């Protein structure tokens, strides 16, 4: 913007100087032409009578009034180089118009040709003069005819023009700079918006760019969206591959476990133990792959309400045979606009495992509540009416979560996965006492801005 402004100023300045110089030159040329006419009249009208030079009778009134500004003089150039005025206009009274030696030399160099000089006249006024040196027949010395006029009016004109030009160009320059500012401010607004949107995609506030960009930017926003989609697709494919591999191993494991359980003995025990280890390894690496894939995706925004609804319906079905068929009642609350900053699958794992844990231990009632808390955070609180955990065991239950290998699936609280996943999202799990009498699990998680 600074460069554009400076450039505009420079161009306007050059144009101004050029215009002013052109105007001044044109004015002087016109001025010179009228002077040349007078010089020619003097030259053509002069006669030699009895070896004496006679000036023509000129009707120009201005040359008769004293110091009127228009003057003429006929000079005799003596052999010693001195200039002796022979006849002069009356307007000069008794002043002389003196030529400088350089001017005299120039006249000498081009006899018969009109030359134009700047000089000083009576009352020290700046004059413009048309001068011609010629040889008159019957006259020994060269004669110089000089007509001059006060040039201050054209100087004044030129100055006036320069002022007007400067003023006009100043307005033009100011206007151009303003246009540049407006262009940058408003014309580039969509670009600024694009930058903001890309940033919000990166922060996970949006999944893609809007498609209401002006024509010039639309291809760019389309390409960016395509890139985002491609990125997501690659990650998704990677995840699917890993998932397929892991899941493909599970059926053979089932077969081994079943076979082993049907043939008691030492071999069966070893197979069972090893199959269990393999299963843990598969689960562990499945989660690791998911976590790796997660770090590559740009943050996603996952609305919480529909997931809690789905999980509540699903879990009530899973636990419908519990407590002699009375099942489990899940009472959940969540503001409609609450969104988790992260992947849907991950939030399902987090909430699903915590709620399933509550379902395992409760007597029949689970209460889940999701709510925003503080700057870009949310809390998911799950209460049950089961036996709960004494404080010293709560710490242990969370500690166990730090080392996956020690924690056999299906035993304990099953909260290690939740703890691991919450940490991956920069969150935390807290265990406490529930007002319903059982355990309260509180997840602190990142919240996506609405």
């Amino acid at each position: 913007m600074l460069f554009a402004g400076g450039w505009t100023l420079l161009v306007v300045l050059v144009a101004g100087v050029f215009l002013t110089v052109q105007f001044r030159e044109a004015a002087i040329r016109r001025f010179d032409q009228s002077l040349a006419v007078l010089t020619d009249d003097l030259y053509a009208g002069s006669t030699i009578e009895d070896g004496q030079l006679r000036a023509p009778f000129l009707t120009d009134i201005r040359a008769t009034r004293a110091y009127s500004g228009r003057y003429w003089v006929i000079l005799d150039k003596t052999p010693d180089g001195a200039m002796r005025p022979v006849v002069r206009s009356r307007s000069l009274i008794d002043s002389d118009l003196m030529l400088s030696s350089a001017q005299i030399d120039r006249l000498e160099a081009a006899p018969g040709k009109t030359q134009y000089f700047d000089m000083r006249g009576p009352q020290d006024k700046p004059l413009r003069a048309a001068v011609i040196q010629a040889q008159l027949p019957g006259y020994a010395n060269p004669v110089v005819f000089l007509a001059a006029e006060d040039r201050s009016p054209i100087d004044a004109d030129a100055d006036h023009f320069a002022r007007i030009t400067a003023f006009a160009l100043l307005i033009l320059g100011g206007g151009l700079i303003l246009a540049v500012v407006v262009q940058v401010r408003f014309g580039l607004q969509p670009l600024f918006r694009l930058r903001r949107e890309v940033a919000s995609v990166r922060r996970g506030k949006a999944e893609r760019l809007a498609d209401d960009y002006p024509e010039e930017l639309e291809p760019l926003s389309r390409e960016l969206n395509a890139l985002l989609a491609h990125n997501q697709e690659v990650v998704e494919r990677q995840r699917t591959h890993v998932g397929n591999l892991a899941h493909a191993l599970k059926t053979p494991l089932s077969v081994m476990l079943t076979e082993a359980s049907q043939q008691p003995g030492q071999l069966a025990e070893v197979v069972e133990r090893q199959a269990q280890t393999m299963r843990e390894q598969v689960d562990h690496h499945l989660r690791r792959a998911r976590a790796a894939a997660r770090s590559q995706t740009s943050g996603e925004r996952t609305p919480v309400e529909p997931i809690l609804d789905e999980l509540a319906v699903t879990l009530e079905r899973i636990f419908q045979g519990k407590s002699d068929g009375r099942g489990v009642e899940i009472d959940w609350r969540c503001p409609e606009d609450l969104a988790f900053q992260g992947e849907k699958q991950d939030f399902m794992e987090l909430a699903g495992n915590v709620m399933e844990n509550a379902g395992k231990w409760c007597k029949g009632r689970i209460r889940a509540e999701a709510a925003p808390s503080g700057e870009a955070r949310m809390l998911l609180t799950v209460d049950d009416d089961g036996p709960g955990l004494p404080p010293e065991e709560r710490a242990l239950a969370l500690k166990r979560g730090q080392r996956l290998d020690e924690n056999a699936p299906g035993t304990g609280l099953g909260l290690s996965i939740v703890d691991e996943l919450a940490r991956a999202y920069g969150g935390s799990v807290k265990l406490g006492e529930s007002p319903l009498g059982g355990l309260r699990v509180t997840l602190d998680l990142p919240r996506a801005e609405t």
Partner: protein
Amino acid sequence: MRILLVEDDPDLSRQLKLTLADAGYAVDHAPDGEEAQYLGENEPYDAVILDLGLPKVDGVSVLERWRRGNVATPVLILTARGAWSDKVAGFDAGADDYLAKPFHTEELLARLRALLRRSAGHAAPSLSCGALRLDPRAARASVNGEPLRLTSLEYRLLHYMMMHQGRVIGRTELVEHLYDQDFDRDSNTIEVFIGRLRKKLGADRIETVRGLGYRLTPLEGEATA
């Protein structure tokens, strides 16, 4: 008791057939989705054990087709995919229980017994209100045959309103029937549940009677039951 086992892995199928037969069940086996769908639609099974990763037609699609074709046989999904998103999808398709591989056979048998016990529950007449139907035996509700996914509290509220359809029911009365005990609930509890029901049933079925409560009515043009 006749069971349909849908599983494509030959070893696992053989083992499960043996286990189930030992437990006293008659077992039919389908190794792919197409055959499973055909058998499920044409034979009167008491329960189905359904693998999800199947050749030809996948398990979730088979289940959806059965449910759309009014095959109400209880289904236990047996799958390697144990993520919650998979479980939710399975139950959405109409599953009654879900067991992730690898599993212990004792657990499978226990789940199967529970499933059969539940489905043998006594029949009760279904309720309807226009295109809305509620089956108290299976604790399921549907609109125009499309099953609704309701939590037990939502179901309980809808059940009560259907038993008293056409009548304006006050908030206090609804809260009392929603929760067995007297809990210190905030005053908008009922609004929250009515809002969720409206979202799932369609907004017009539940009418708000200002100052008095709510009323469940069939939509205009729908036949009253």
